[in-house]
């Protein structure tokens, strides 16, 4: 999950985060307790997170949040709609998760 979140941060460096199950909010990356996270909302920034909390899924907030779900070794990313920016984010996630360091074993 951390790899995917870091990949999103490449495009949204000031991203804010919310535990998808508990609703706990984290405005700084280092605050995120990844060991406890099965679902996470990654918002473009704190302002977008505030707006989602206030208004929910309104058209004006389209593509300002990525919903990540971890399950049995897979990561699912949910976005509003595909556009150039979200394509780049999804490609970054796929690239990061393809890093051999994450699966190679060393003696």
């Amino acid at each position: 999950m951390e790899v995917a979140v870091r990949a999103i941060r490449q495009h949204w460096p000031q991203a804010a985060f919310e535990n998808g199950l508990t609703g706990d909010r984290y405005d700084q990356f280092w605050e995120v307790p990844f060991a406890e996270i099965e679902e996470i909302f990654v918002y473009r920034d704190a302002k977008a997170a505030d707006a989602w909390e206030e208004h929910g899924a309104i058209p004006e907030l389209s593509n300002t949040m990525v919903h990540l779900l971890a399950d049995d070794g897979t990561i699912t990313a949910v976005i509003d709609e595909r556009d150039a920016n979200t394509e780049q984010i999804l490609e970054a996630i796929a690239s990061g998760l393809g890093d051999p360091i994450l699966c190679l074993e060393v003696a």
Partner: protein
Amino acid sequence: MPNPTSLEEAIRHSGEGWLIDSFAPPEEAIPYLRQTLQAVRAIGQQRFEGNAPDLSEKAVVQEYIRNPLRVRGFLQSLGGTRSTEMLLMVWRILQGMEVKDIQLSYRKREQFEVRVVLESAYGEEDPPYVSNNIHDFVLFRHIGILESGGPIFDGFYALRVREA
């Protein structure tokens, strides 16, 4: 979720017990690691003063409880380098600092230098982290790689160590 209450418990829970058991003598491992953490903490305080990361034993154990995989990478680094400056760099990457620049200079039998610049999400740079110890190259095996609009080093990950 893990629930260690000491550095030794965190190390053993993480599967990095070799840090203790391969130390000679093993009973001196924890005092040595505590000293190393204190030295890293001191460098952090020199560099960042009031904003220095908390690298007390208690803080490391608490962070291990919150992010065991992340801290496992740091624990592996404790066994991989004696450079307190580079250990501080590792901790800063774990905190979310990004790798902005790496300059590596090597000439067989003559020279090794690695110089790393980290920056925050807000573009603030740490003073460069520099090492002339070739063994510190091992740390770079842990850095994550991705491509997104160009090459990116990001993140610091534990290696999956095969059980002997």
